[in-house]
């Protein structure tokens, strides 16, 4: 039942989930913004990150190695996928891109199921971050607090890459006009490969750092993919700030609704999306023409 303690703790949960969704959605949105491809395998990338991390953890017992393994493995998967398959789809219709990434998502999920089975795997948080932390007004799981910090740092890193580096400038220019960037003598093909890798890595990283909170299973990415779509629709396609804002909004809606009845969290999310579509069809921070 409703108590203020419960409310604040759910607000915190919403913040953690929101930051996580923001990170995953940023990956999706910069890939879409730059390459023009909506990656329906993005949820599977999230799942792959969790599994790669779990494997690394099983062998080394180190959480940090697990996180690095999750992020780097998924980045490599992204780069290889882009080189082998996605690259051939830039000139093909959007529908074909959706079909092929949807198929790739199934292949990733079923590959994992084939090798690791359908049962979920857990990665415990590192010893130092286990247990709970008293915050004065409430006690809160230490790892979730840490997770908020970790994801915030990752988002800042992504922000730094996008807005403060040469490559980020090229990516942002590519979002505005990829043909123009190409004709300025910049190798846009390489940039595309890199962007796909970074976008995938954002999902993979989120997948492994979230593994101590929600156990990894082959279909863990499905729900994430749907939530990511809502985030992107709310925030505006191709907009990094939009992904962050949309992520936080979606995270709070899901958490606060769960406090009363988890079954309605999707309904509330859907209502929020509807409101945005009716009032601001291009998303809160979106721009006309990026679709």
């Amino acid at each position: 039942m409703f108590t203020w303690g419960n409310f604040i703790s759910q607000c915190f949960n919403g913040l953690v989930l929101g930051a996580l969704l923001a990170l995953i959605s940023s990956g999706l949105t910069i890939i879409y913004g730059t390459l023009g491809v909506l990656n329906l395998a993005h949820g599977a990338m999230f799942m792959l990150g969790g599994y790669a991390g779990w494997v690394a953890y099983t062998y080394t017992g180190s959480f940090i190695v697990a996180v690095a393994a999750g992020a780097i493995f998924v980045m490599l998967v992204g780069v290889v996928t882009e080189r082998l398959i996605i690259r051939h789809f830039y000139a093909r219709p959007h529908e074909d891109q959706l079909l092929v990434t949807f198929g790739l998502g199934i292949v990733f999920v079923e590959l994992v199921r084939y090798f690791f089975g359908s049962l979920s795997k857990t990665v415990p948080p590192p010893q130092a971050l286990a247990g709970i932390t008293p915050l004065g007004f409430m006690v809160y799981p230490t790892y979730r607090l840490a997770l908020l910090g970790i994801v915030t740092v990752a988002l800042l890193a992504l922000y730094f890459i996008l807005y403060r580096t040469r490559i980020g400038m090229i990516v942002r220019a590519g979002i505005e006009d990829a043909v123009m960037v190409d004709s300025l003598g910049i190798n846009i093909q390489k940039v595309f490969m890199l962007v796909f890798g970074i976008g995938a890595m954002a999902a993979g990283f989120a997948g492994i750092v979230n593994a101590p909170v929600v156990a990894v299973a082959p279909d863990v990415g499905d729900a994430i993919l749907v939530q990511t779509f809502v985030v992107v629709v709310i925030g505006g396609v191709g907009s990094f700030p939009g992904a962050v804002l949309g992520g936080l909004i979606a995270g709070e809606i899901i958490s606060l609704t769960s406090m009363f009845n988890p079954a309605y969290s999707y309904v509330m999310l859907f209502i929020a999306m509807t409101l945005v579509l009716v009032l601001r069809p291009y998303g809160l921070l979106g721009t006309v023409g990026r679709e």
Partner: protein
Amino acid sequence: MPTRQRAYIVEILTLLALIAAPFVLPHLGFAPATINRILIWGLVGIGFDLLFGFTGLLSFGQAAFFGTGGMFAAYLLTNTSFTNTIGATLIGTAVAGVVGYLIGLLALRRTGIYFAMITVAIAEVFFFLEFNPLSDYTGGENGLPGVPPPNLDLGFWSMTFGSNTQMYAFFAFWYFVGLVIALRIVRSPVGLLLRAIRDNPLRAQALGHNIHGYKLTVFVVAAMYAGFAGSLLGMLQGFMPPDAFMFHTSGEIVMQTAIGGAGWLFGPLLGAAVWLYLADFFQITLDLGASWKLVLGIVFVLLVVFLRHGLVGAIVDLWRLARPARPSAPPSEPARAAATRVQAAAQSRHKSTRSTSGPILQVSGLTKRYGGLVANSDIDFSVDHGEIRGIIGPNGAGKSTFFKMLTCEVKPSSGRIVFDGRDITAMSVSDACQLGLTKSYQINQLFDRLTVRQNLAIAALGELRGKFKLDLLKSLPKVPGLDPQVESTAALVHLEDRLDTPVAELAYGEKRRLEIGLALATSPSLLLLDEPLAGMSPQERVETVALLKAIAAGRTMIVIDHDMDALFELVGKVTVLQEGRLLVEGTPDEIRSNAEVQEAYLGGIHEEAGAE
């Protein structure tokens, strides 16, 4: 498009195939229950193909309608005294249609990937609603058991379709009905407009069609097909499974259609056959266990990568390769063409106007700002009935923006446009076209995957049927006046020998003429031509100027072009725009000798400014 004498061949062949299937397929290793499932997926797929293959709207949310229709029918049959399975199926279909209408209102606010994402999200909401809040009605994760097999009760005689074979007869009958209806839709004016929306939605709108209405229509139709098939699913299995609502169900509909080939109506059936056969084969014959999905996923990715148009598309391609190419019609003699053209021009129609003399178009204070950039500033402009007006101006003078405001493609920041006595400033581009004001584009805006005849028909239908009409089951050739209008317009733009050629195979000059033909086929009372000579060779220019002269007889036109010699030969009066302002108006001779105009063109210092 099939010619009339072959019109029913598809239906007859389908009927024969449906009769033969239960005798042939078991020998190929299909289990009887699998054959029935193929029909159900094929039925969902017919609706989905109308939506995706014909209209270009890729929905990943069909499971919402499949599940809703199925659950509704199953609930009626298991928890109420309702026993009529056909009645329950029809009610399930109707409910899916209503739900489809409501969701369509929302999802169709956007296109492309946004549309795909919104449909995914909405379908997921349905899944959660089914699973939790509505579990008292839907059985939650258990689904609804005890759905009776299909029955037919005629009062004096009743029958239950209990066995696999009987069910096959029942499902095959409904598949056939569904297919016949879909074929009629495809061959109706609406069916052609759906393809127009797929190829070029903006032009379809500019030709006077309410494309949102047609998109909503096909969305509802697809939802009804899904609801219908969902209702049958419960009867086939004896229970209504909750996983009908899952994202994977939507995904399978999409994948089966992609495997079979979109845009043929049969693709989903073939895709479902391949999909379910392989699923059985991998699971039972090869004993792959759970990894059958992995193999199917890989097969699917390979098919999307290498077989762009699916299996039906591949078969059609092979068929075309095997048959010798039809010789294309030789271009006709220019002299004959010119003669036909003049004749056709005399016959070509235009919408009647309220007034017949004085100004047909009056523009006052028209201004358009893009942020800080003023593209058009305070333009006053007027054109009389029967006048041929030219507009010139250096690049960036705001000519194209001016035209876009006249045709209501772009809303002016301020000012007023009065056409034939009506204020059209706030109207939509399709309404403006319906009133008789249309434009041919500077860059060709054609329906590339359709033939010249179909392109012209899309334009003519705007005038002949109005903005929106639900003649879903009417045969396209039966639209009164369509054939003469298409043929006379084709003759006018000298494409009468190319009527059945796909646009993609036309030469550039021919496409350019078709572009003008599209505008003409709407029978405009005021025709705007945005750089009709752009990109043409000198020879093509001469021909096109002759064409424009032929069109000009008895018509009001405004023409933008950079080729001043050609333009001055054509028009009675010229308006010069510069930097978004009206510089000067006058006869061609006055404009030629005007010092300001010479300054604007030759001074050159302002040429880079502004955007067009």
